[in-house]
């Protein structure tokens, strides 16, 4: 689980081009959207592709992402339960 969280943090930084952010700066329960990292709906779409490509999880409705992408912690939980690869 801890390894997955670390992995997710560096993937988020890379995929979303967050040049000025480092892995240590993201806490497991930091909100990713809004006041936290400040991600937006386009980032959510990028993360949905990441779930599909790297973990074999397909979301049909972008609204489903809202709960999953609350924080790195919620993402890791969801991935652990649903991953197919």
């Amino acid at each position, binding site marked *: 689980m801890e390894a997955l969280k670390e992995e997710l943090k560096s993937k988020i930084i890379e995929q979303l081009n967050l040049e000025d952010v480092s892995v240590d700066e993201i806490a497991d329960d930091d909100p990713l959207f809004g006041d936290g990292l400040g991600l937006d*709906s*386009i980032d959510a*779409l990028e993360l*949905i592709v990441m779930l599909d490509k790297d973990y074999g999880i397909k979301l049909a*409705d*972008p609204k489903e992402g809202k709960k999953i992408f609350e924080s790195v912690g919620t993402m890791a939980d969801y991935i652990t339960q649903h991953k197919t690869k």
Partner: protein
Amino acid sequence: MGKGIAITGMGIISAIGNNVEENYRSLIDGKKGISRISKIDTVHKDALMVGEIDFTNQELEQFLELGGSHNYSRSALLGAFAAKQAVSNANITHINSYKTGLVSATTVGGMDKTEQYYYEYFENKEVQKYIEGHHAGDSTQKIAEQLGLHGSLVTTISTACSSAANAILLGARLLKAGKLDRVIVGGTDGLSKFTLNGFKTLMIQSDTYNTPFDENRKGLNLGEAAAFLVLESDEVVQKENKEVLAYVKGWGNANDAFHQTASSDHGDGATLAMQKALKVAGSKSNEIDYINAHGTATPNNDLSEGRAFLRVFGDTVPDFSSTKAYTGHTLAAAGGVEAVFSVLALQHNVIFPNLNFKNPMQEFHLTPQTELKKKKLHTVLSNSLGFGGNCSTLIFSKEA
């Protein structure tokens, strides 16, 4: 208010017909043009529905008598086909006899060929001719050539889903300022893998028939089309004793300045665009008899546009419908397609139904016109709202 901007000709090709008459028939008969993808080789064939035009490229080439070696993209073929119709509908025989311009619109341009030959360019000299056909202005240059325009003002607008509406807006302003006597305006977009996949990444495409303004709307169907109007000044209309189909009376463009792709929740851009257009037309909001909505059937657009209606029209929102359920969202061509539909509505005093609508949206109680409605129409408002916050409104009227 100033000079009249007369519409004296129209041409269109869309998923519901290859000319104005066929499009009108389909609109009246409630016949939609949405189907599975047949002309593009894509892995999403079974997951998406689109508004495809019946004609193949080869058939269009034959109509245009291109022959030999040419480098027309699908957008160029469709555009030339529709623009020629418009010019012939306006009974123009000598295109350069008045100061005539062309303002077209496209988003994909020659992307269909680029995606086809992207790597083949390096191996096959035969297909290298399409390299010059990639840029958006190329389709417009070809349309100008097909129309015989020479030494003329010819330009292209690309503002996503509002492109053709903006071409009409610019054309009207060029006439009003006396820069031109006559201008052919509209837009063209062929379907491509690029746009299908692009909209797929945004997750706003429906896997079934699109349902504008419905509570359970699942997104848009992409479509392809080209549609053009001929606009002429009062002087030309008088001199040539032209029949006027309708007038472009008002126009407005504004930006949401909210988000790269999404519209603002309260429809700021759309509200501003409608208000500006009403002001240019010198019309009060209660003078609008029918709104041809942008109504793409995405959750975001229809909510934002609906709220903008309430802001502009208050409790008395005019009859409105989206015709996207017929044609799909034809992107850069949409404003042209819907301008043709707006003029048809005026000519025949009829409101086209908003197909596929079942339940009003939770956020408000706006119900589009769902049945064909006969009604005396004087003034019609048409919205085109886009990506990048670009919002445009046109107002068409029977009188100048």
